[in-house]
């Protein structure tokens, strides 16, 4: 079924749940589709025009009305109840897990600027550094991103993460994910944002833990002006910061 629908590889913790929900709906709708369409075709064949025959004279059947109304209502209510928890888990900041890494993603025509915390492990301090069109994260790490836009509405979309969230000027919108498979992917824009909308892509790299430590330390050093001491301090800070309470305190606002 996944091949029929061409679902991309899933690399996020909640992506599997989204895919399960997708499959449940796909099975239900496939069954309903075949039931209805086959019934339709059967009726068209069975009750096709014959000269001299008169159609059944009936104005309906209230029991059947009640049955298919209640049946449909039951299915959609169950789907709604099943979906709601997952929806809030993904999108409601009050349900977000504690972040182990916080990034600021600022969109503008037609690029993604990713701001990483410096050695202090905190955003919006002097040692932050920003890289254009490159989103790097460590594997199996809970990442919280804050989305902003400098000009028009963009939409952060990584199909493999099963994550999409608009970036709206004037708002700071939080989102989270935890990537489970190291590799190189593409971050794209899903909201028409102007003439370069189609080429507003950035590379999205999920590092193994070791890889990440090296990469992050190097980048911090480069940003800070590069001494060996800085490099070591940066690497330590990264490890210590994992799960720190102050990181969780960053309140969403919109």
């Amino acid at each position, binding site marked *: 079924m996944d091949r029929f629908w061409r*679902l991309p590889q899933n690399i996020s913790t909640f992506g599997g749940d989204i895919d399960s929900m997708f499959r449940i709906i796909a099975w239900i709708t496939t069954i309903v589709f075949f039931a209805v369409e086959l019934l339709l075709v059967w009726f068209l064949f069975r009750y096709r025009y014959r000269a001299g025959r008169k159609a059944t004279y009936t104005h309906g059947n209230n029991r059947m009305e009640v049955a298919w109304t209640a049946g*449909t209502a039951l299915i959609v209510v169950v*789907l709604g109840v099943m979906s709601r928890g997952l929806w809030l888990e993904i999108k409601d900041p009050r349900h977000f897990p504690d972040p182990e890494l916080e990034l600021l993603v600022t969109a503008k025509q037609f690029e993604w600027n990713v701001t990483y915390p410096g050695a202090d492990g905190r955003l919006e301090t002097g040692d932050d550094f920003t890289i254009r069109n490159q989103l790097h994260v460590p594997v199996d790490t809970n990442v919280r991103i804050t989305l902003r836009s400098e000009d028009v509405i963009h939409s952060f979309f990584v199909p493999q993460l099963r994550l999409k969230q608009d970036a709206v000027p004037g708002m700071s919108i939080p989102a989270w994910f935890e990537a489970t498979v190291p590799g190189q992917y593409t971050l*794209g824009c899903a909201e*028409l944002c102007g003439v370069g909308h189609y080429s507003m892509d950035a590379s999205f790299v999920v590092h193994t833990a070791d890889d990440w430590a090296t990469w992050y330390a190097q980048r911090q050093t480069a940003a800070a002006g590069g001494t060996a001491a800085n490099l070591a301090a940066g690497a330590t800070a990264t490890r210590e910061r994992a799960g720190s309470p102050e990181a969780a305190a960053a309140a969403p606002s919109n």
Partner: protein
Amino acid sequence: MSTVATPQETGTHGTHGNHEDLPFLRKYVFSTDHKVIGIQFLFMSLLFLLLGGLLAMAMRWQLAWPTDPSRPLPGGSLLPDTMFTSGVMLPEFYNALVTMHGTIMVFFAIMPLLVGVWANYLIPLQIGADDMAFPRLNMASFWLALPAGLLMLASFAVVGGAANAGWTGYPPLSINEVYSGVKTGQQLWAISLVILGFSSLMGAVNYITTIINMRAPGMTWFRLPLSTWALFITSILLLLAVPVLAGGLIMLFFDMTFGMGFFNPATGGQPLLWQHLFWFFGHPEVYILILPAMGFVSDIIANGARKPIFGYKAMVWAIVGIGFIGWVVWGHHMFMSGMNPLLGGFFMVTTLIIAVPSAIKTFNWLGTLWGGNIRFHAPNLHAISFVALFVIGGLSGVFLAAAPVDVPLHDTYFVVAHIHYVLVGGSLFGIFAAITFWFPKMFGRMMNEPLGKLHWLLTFVFFNLTFFPMHMLGSAGMMRRLYDPTNYPHIAQYQDTNVFITISALLLFASQTLFIVNFFWSLFRGKKAPANPWQANSLEWSAPSPPPHGNWGGHMPIVHRGPYEYSSPESEEDYLMQTAPPTGKPAPVHS
């Protein structure tokens, strides 16, 4: 009702023949006859349908062979350098195509084809009135719609080109020339839609008043054909939704022209405010674009199956239900917008619930076919296809309604597939059903049946080949409104699908030639139509084909029963017209 008519019109109520002597201009151009206005809307909106389709072909060409100078868009070299240069379409032109295709199809093709044409043409004929309650308002409605459409087209010719911020016109992109490169085109877009909004309001007021006040003796609410019921509820939706869009558009226009800042965060505005206003209109609009087609299809399927519509009252209440619930689902367009996720949870539930009345309608159509004696004439083939395809459009909607599943699918080709299954597979097939069904009444001539069937077959096949694969492109993660899909590796691997879709779309478009040929050939050379070629029951079929000015030739119809008394034991025939006097045989027992 007659208190609002001018003395001249009051005078003609008794002497319909006089109108036949009107000068050409009053009879065919500035006409107050609801039938002429309906036909004017028909020609206008079919022209826009063709233009909107042409824009789609240009988009599809680009998506199949993006920026490939060895396969330039045919005719592209005729376009100015601001659109097409050295064999390659420019991205700004592609974005204008996306925007104008959506805008033209929704506002100037499907909406007038459903409402402007059929509300005007059918309502007085189906309820047994001699015209609309406000004939001059009706005329004004058309003469606002046409300039609005021309203004929209003219925007292609202004500096900067046509609007290119999508048919949804999201600010800040739509309000700032620095971001979009378009100023005048976007302003014309807003002005044109405001004018069209006034046109819709004039129509809506008229349709509602006419249905409430001008029904023939005996035409109770529950003897109205479902087409009229659907148009009635649609008119109420228009009356309530269009002012919200117009208000939003005026604010948008002020933002882009005077820098007012309603939607611009730089001056204290809120981009999401526009989205709420737009979709508060926009989702009822979706039902405005499908309910009338549901009405036509109900009438045509009952006629084709020679059976009373199954569950008439359930069908009416389903239309009313969709009309109500349609107001509280708009937020599903904004699941990813940054709106409070708790609101998303609410809108997910309401959106799923609206599947219920849609399912009721589908099952009742099946019930109507069950036990019938089904005639497969071209109108019925289109109507049955509507049911088959609307099922797909409805089911794909369930994926999108479930908010977590919508996260990866939002703003992808899955949505494109979904809306086209509803608006083409649904609305457009409903429109083809209606045109082929009521053409004999409109023009007094039959359409060519074999040509009509061939057109149906090719349209049905190529429609599915075009739009079904888009579901998979969407679930594979292909975003909407992409000038060059090969830029993304996860989409580029499916480029062959994009080529396949484009070829299917070109064939779908080419198949429409059959309809155009059939339409014009039949208009002049078709077989003369009798008053009731389909042996149908509703009032319009008791008028001559085409009906004269005043519709009934001097005597007004009296209604004795509902519109779906097919195969009634009361009659020897398999139909029994609403106007036929009681036969004296035992009246059938209703469930």
